[in-house]
C-alpha cells in the first residue's frame, strides 16, 4: 500500500512516506524561515532561459534579483542524485524506465522523443500554471492558497487520466 516496491535506482527500499513528508516540510519551512524564500522548482526553468534569452519576458525575469537562489538550489538537486546513486551501488548511465520498458517497449530514439515531448508539456504547463508539485502542490497548499489547490487537482487529474490511458486503455491492464 505504501512504498512496497523497490526503487529503479539500485533496487533500494524507499524511505518511509511519513518521514519523507516530515523532511520535505523541514526543507520548505527552513527555506522560508532562515533564507526567506518560498519553496518551488519550476520557476527555475524560466531563470535558466533568462540566462540565454533577451526576449521581453525573460528580461523581466532576469531583472528580478530575488531569483538568484534558484541556480544553486537546482545544482544541489543534481549533485544529490549523483551522490545518492554513487553511495547505493554505483553510478552508471541508464535509461531504465520500469513499466514503460516492460509494457510500452520503445526504442531508445523513440524514448528520447517521448521524454522530450513530455518535458515540453512540463515546461510550458508549469509556467502557465505558475508552479509544479513543489510550488503549488506542497508550498501553495501548505500556505492555504486556493489557486494552488485548483492547479494541484488539475495536474493530478490529468496525470491520472494520462497514465490510465497509457497503461489501462492503450496497453491493456
Amino acid at each position, binding site marked *: 500500500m505504501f512504498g512496497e516496491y523497490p526503487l529503479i535506482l539500485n533496487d533500494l527500499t524507499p524511505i518511509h512516506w511519513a518521514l519523507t*513528508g516530515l523532511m520535505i516540510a523541514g526543507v520548505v519551512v527552513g527555506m522560508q524561515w532562515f533564507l526567506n524564500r518560498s519553496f518551488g522548482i519550476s520557476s527555475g526553468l524560466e531563470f535558466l532561459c533568462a540566462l540565454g534569452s533577451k526576449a521581453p519576458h525573460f528580461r523581466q525575469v532576469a531583472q528580478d534579483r530575488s531569483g538568484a537562489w534558484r541556480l544553486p538550489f537546482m545544482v544541489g538537486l543534481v549533485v544529490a542524485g549523483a551522490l545518492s546513486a554513487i553511495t547505493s551501488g554505483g553510478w552508471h548511465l541508464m535509461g531504465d524506465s520500469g513499466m514503460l520498458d516492460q509494457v510500452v517497449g520503445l526504442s531508445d530514439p523513440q524514448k528520447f522523443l517521448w521524454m522530450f515531448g513530455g518535458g515540453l508539456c512540463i515546461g510550458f504547463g508549469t509556467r502557465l500554471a505558475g508552479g509544479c508539485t513543489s510550488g503549488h502542490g506542497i508550498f501553495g497548499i501548505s500556505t492555504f492558497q486556493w489557486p494552488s489547490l485548483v492547479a494541484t487537482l488539475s495536474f493530478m487529474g490529468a496525470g491520472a487520466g494520462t497514465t490510465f490511458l497509457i497503461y489501462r486503455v492503450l496497453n491493456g491492464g
Partner: protein
Amino acid sequence: MKNKERLSFLILGGIFGWILSRSGASDYDYIQRMFLLEDFQLFGIIGGAVAFGAPVLWWLKRQGKSYGGQPLDLSRKPYHRGVIPGGILFGVGWSITGMCPGPILVNMGEGKWTAFAAFFGAVCGAYLYGLLRPSMSRFLQVPQGDQGI
C-alpha cells in the same frame, strides 16, 4: 547574492534532492502507481509534507518575520486563466515522463539519460512559454499586483 547564501541553497537543494531520490518521488514506476492508485507512497509524501508544513508556515506568516528579522517574503499564487490549462498540460507531461521538475534534476544526477531528454524538453517548453507570454496577457487576466508572473 553572497557565496554563503549560495552555499546554503546548494545544501538545501542537496537535502531535498536526496529525499526525492531515496523516497520514490523520482521513480518512474512510483509515479505511475500513484496515478493508478496502486501505491500510496507519493500521496503520503505530499500529504505528509503539507500536514507537517502547514501549521508552521501558518505561524510564520502570522508573525510575519524571517529568522533574520526581515519581513516574510512569501510567494503569492494568484488565480488566472492559465492555472487550469497549465496544470492539465503539466499533469500530462508528468505522467508521460514519470518526472516533475525537481525529480528531472535528481534523475539527471542519478544517471538516467531519459531525464536529460525531459530536461531539454522542459527548458524548451518554458522558453516557448516566455516567448508567448506577452501575447497571452489579455487571455490570462493575471490580477493587478501580480503582473510579474
